């Protein structure tokens, strides 16, 4: 089955080519479900894809993502593409970018890291050690964080 029967959206964002199984985490990143949402959100999981074999798709009406949300999606779905839809047309399409440094998006996996101490005025900061799977090295304690989904801020 190659055709996916989902109504096109008029205005909003389509996040395509999400790593299979990550759609619900993408929803978490963009803050859905949340109270006060009156638009439709469509989630397609494990959809066949010519490009990457299997993928997830998230369509959110009347919403465009901010930079922090796109950067977080890049961490858990490095092949995702973001399509901005206005009046049924794709007006903007771009791939998420693999980061070289990750600042303020992820919590350090080391519970004894100074960045996990309450009230210290410090933002978490990591360098990227490997991309597939993603491994982040803490700027402060040098430890590696590998379970990115669990430690997203």
């Amino acid at each position, binding site marked *: 089955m190659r055709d996916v029967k989902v109504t096109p959206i008029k205005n909003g964002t389509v996040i395509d080519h999400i790593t299979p199984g990550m759609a619900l985490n993408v929803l978490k990143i963009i803050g859905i479900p949340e109270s006060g949402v009156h638009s439709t959100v469509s989630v397609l999981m494990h959809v066949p894809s010519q490009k990457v074999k299997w993928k997830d798709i998230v369509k959110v009406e009347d919403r465009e993502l901010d930079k922090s949300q796109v950067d977080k999606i890049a961490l858990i779905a490095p092949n995702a593409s973001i399509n901005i839809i206005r009046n049924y047309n794709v007006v903007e399409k771009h791939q998420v970018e693999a980061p070289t440094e990750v600042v303020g998006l992820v919590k350090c996996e080391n519970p004894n*890291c*100074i*960045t996990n*101490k309450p009230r210290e005025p410090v933002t978490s900061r990591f360098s990227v050690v490997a991309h597939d799977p993603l491994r982040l090295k803490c700027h402060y304690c*040098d430890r*590696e964080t590998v379970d990115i989904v669990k430690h997203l801020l």
Partner: protein
Amino acid sequence: MDFTGRDVVSIRDLSKDEIIHILDHAAKMLPAAQGEKLSKVLNGKILATLFFEPSTRTRLSFESSMLRLGGMCMGFSDASGTSVVKGETLADTIRMAEAYADAIVLRHPHEGAAKLAADFSSKPVINAGDGAGQHPTQTLLDLFTIRTEKGDIADKNIVLVGDLKYGRTVHSLSYALSLFGASITCVAPPGLQMPPEIVSHMKQNGGKFNLSDSLESVIPGADVLYVTRIQKERFPDPEEYRKVEGAFRIDNALLANAKRSLIVMHPLPRVNEIAPEVDAGPHCRYFKQAFYGVPVRMALLSLILGKGGI
């Protein structure tokens, strides 16, 4: 080579050439470290020693180093008498110390604390141990001990024994030893062997490296036996500690098969891992090693604060 105003957070902040420069400088500091020569290189300079965790050797040797160079020290050895108990953040404590002193030495229970301090302070910060993280001046004094007592580090057979999983000292030391071309053998009880990421760093540096679980079999070929305490406080599970407590004990019977020139080192404090009978024997260097902390820290302070004067 200019060290003025530099932070020393991790041994990896220093290149091999910079480490050699510090060790060369430390050798020149020996007469002043022993009180045979007076130095005024750091006259008028103030060192803040902020120790949020207990320490004997590190704090006293930093203070001795500063005093031997004609400088002054202030600080605390227990955070309970400070505004930390009122909830002051480390960042604010560092801002205060920076205002009162020319350099800061920090020991803290949280990993990454020294990096945070260095980010907040315009004055140089020296890491004196951050949790299970880095303790670069211990590594420098370990290297100085091996070089001074054995003449060289390259091609020496160095056996690291004890808690190689949680021991911060052996992680930094093994990294530095691999830079210098030493041959390293790691001996640890089950579950406490050197972490794979440290082994991978050593291999990247071209280090010669072996793992073993038999201390008896590696003793005859060893030039240096570096013993570490199995640290109860670093174990997340007390049951895991009980299984390995007392796994290795260095005594004269074990050392009977060693080379006469073998030296035994230990970062101290020791508990039961080295029998007191070894203290008086020909192999013991752990007390001398503790003394070498003074010339090494004098060298570092002189390079950072005093343009490398002696």
